[in-house]
């Protein structure tokens, strides 16, 4: 196959031409004046700059909450971000609705009007393109915190950054592996190169924009090495376009040793690859952790609080910069403002008392998990660079085709979906089906032994049905399915 997208910085002229076409996608594009926007963004206080706020917080030894939240009506959105900041949040996401994510700005506009009329949100996020720069600046100016758009397409990102958001959390792998069915990875890379280049443009002019890395987000129980390997590619792509601040998002999966190991090893691995490829000036200001993809059964309020409390505790012990805890409404629907407040209050309570004690916590098994994770990541990336003759984009595209990059329960039809993860007896994630992953026998045997151990204990074969049981187990307070 011939791959057009290359790991190569878009030259400025070309970029500016693309930029002006993007602004024509919707009337509100006119509100963006790039030079004025950069100026506005550069002059924001440090507390509103995602990288500076994160570095400051890391230095203070705090763990705060990083939620997901977005609601269609402007006044509601302002009230929402105020609630979030009041509950101790310093990094405010603006989750964008699904129509906007799919370029259906007109449909989003109609749903927005209906939401205003009916007083009931019929959109699942904030339609940033319809709101435009003027309105969105009102949101950002309403509180003292750093903003990040969630799920921004090109124009959405233009409006977000012009409005004073200081993070450009767009990941080729997240789109490809989590949100898309038909689009190719190449297409997703091409889009992300643009938003990264935009972030680089701001950055080079003194308005540092942070890109958060997602990688290939596991759907359900799956070791994190695949996700981390793809985060590395996300990071390299961003750095090449001039991004100087990247933040990994680490996905917990319930096993404390693994969650802590992944929290520690991810920035280490990222640093290794960024340096190796010459992006030494690209910083990793913090590590953000996520309570996902497991989630509480809506019915059990105690379970919701238990789950988010446990997650906050692990994050605090692991010295995560932020933790994305799911609200008590997670399983029920878009959380109410009250659900946000009480959930983060509980999580904050725990993060505060733990971090303030600056606890030195040594957990058996963490080193081993770090080791095996790094081995797996290296194995995947070696193959990726080999397939791409040194180009991480070409390599990734071929790797997906070859099943070297693969993930279970994936929405995208281009993904092989021939791999499966499962829990071992301690509740740690292991590979059950390796599909075409480029692992040596040492790695494979490690996983096979762990799975075999559980088979012995439970006297049953570990198969797809168990995978599904495991999928639901943790959110119900069990470390493995049964």
């Amino acid at each position, binding site marked *: 196959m011939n791959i057009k997208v290359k790991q190569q910085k878009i030259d400025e002229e070309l970029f500016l031409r693309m930029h002006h076409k993007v602004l024509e996608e919707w009337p509100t594009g006119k509100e963006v004046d790039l030079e004025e926007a950069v100026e506005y963004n550069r002059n924001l206080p440090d507390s509103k700059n995602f990288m500076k706020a994160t570095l400051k917080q890391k230095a203070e030894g705090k763990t705060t909450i990083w939620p997901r939240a977005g609601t269609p009506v402007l006044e509601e959105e302002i009230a929402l971000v105020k609630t979030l900041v009041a509950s101790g949040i310093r990094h405010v996401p603006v989750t964008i609705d*699904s*129509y906007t994510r799919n370029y259906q700005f007109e449909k989003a506009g109609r*749903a927005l009007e209906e939401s205003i009329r009916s007083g009931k949100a019929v959109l699942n996020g904030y339609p940033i393109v319809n709101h435009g720069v003027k309105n969105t600046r009102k949101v950002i100016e309403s509180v003292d915190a750093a903003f990040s758009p969630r799920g921004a397409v090109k124009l959405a990102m233009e409006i977000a950054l012009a409005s004073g958001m200081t993070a450009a959390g767009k990941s080729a792998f997240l789109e490809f592996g*989590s949100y898309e069915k038909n689009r190719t990875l190449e297409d997703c890379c091409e889009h992300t190169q643009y938003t990264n280049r935009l972030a680089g443009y701001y950055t080079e002019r003194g308005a540092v924009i942070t890109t958060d890395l997602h990688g290939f987000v596991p*759907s359900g129980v799956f070791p994190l090495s695949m996700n981390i390997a793809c985060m590395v590619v996300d990071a390299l792509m961003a750095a090449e376009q001039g991004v100087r601040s990247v933040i990994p998002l680490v996905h917990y999966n319930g096993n404390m040793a693994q969650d802590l190991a992944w929290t520690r090893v991810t920035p280490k691995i990222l640093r290794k690859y960024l340096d190796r490829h010459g992006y030494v000036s690209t910083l990793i200001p913090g590590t953000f952790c996520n309570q996902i993809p497991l989630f509480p059964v809506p019915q059990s309020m105690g379970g919701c609080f238990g789950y988010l409390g446990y997650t906050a505790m692990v994050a605090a012990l692991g010295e995560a910069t932020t933790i994305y805890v799911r609200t008590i409404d997670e399983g029920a*629907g878009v959380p109410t403002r009250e659900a946000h407040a009480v959930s983060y209050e509980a999580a904050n309570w725990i993060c505060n008392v733990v971090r303030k004690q600056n606890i030195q916590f040594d957990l058996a098994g963490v080193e081993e998990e770090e080791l095996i994770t790094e081995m797996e990541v290296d194995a995947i990336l070696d193959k990726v660079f080999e397939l791409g003759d040194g180009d991480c984009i070409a390599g990734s595209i071929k790797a997906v085709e070859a099943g070297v990059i693969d993930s279970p329960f994936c929405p995208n039809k281009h993904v092989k979906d021939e791999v499966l993860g499962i829990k071992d007896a301690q509740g740690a994630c292991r590979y059950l089906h390796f599909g075409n992953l480029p692992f040596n026998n040492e790695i494979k045997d490690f996983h096979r032994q762990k799975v075999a151990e559980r088979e012995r204990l439970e006297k049953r074969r570990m198969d797809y049905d168990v995978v599904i049981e495991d999928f639901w187990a943790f959110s119900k307070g069990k470390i493995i399915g049964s």
Partner: protein
Amino acid sequence: MANKPTIITGTVGNDAHVIGTKILSRAFKDAGFNVVALGCLTPPDEFIKVAQETNADAILMSSLYGMAEIDLRGFKDKCREAGLDNVLLYIGGILGVARHDFKEDEVKFKKLGFDRVYPPEANLKGAIEDLKSDLKKKGRMN
């Protein structure tokens, strides 16, 4: 095989949530159904088109992202126009936005023409039994 009913599965509209419909598809396949899985991000019309082509017995639709109501306005009429009056319509997932009483969803989507509406994390074994008995009633399974 004559007596193997055909069902269409998928997540409707701009909804990328796919895990549920994948698990569901596999479960119904294992239960002996002939499953045509459209995956996520499936436009309502595609469900209809494929249902015609495969002369399906039922459509098992998923929606999690909270906007199914908008996606499915007028869907039942289109089914009728397409001559699919006889195709059973089931839907499940997370049908409303924000915490709310499932009863509301049930009323809403029955009005939209669905034969059965399922709450979040609905049990699949139950759903399989429902479909079998509904098909038997219609004499499309024995």
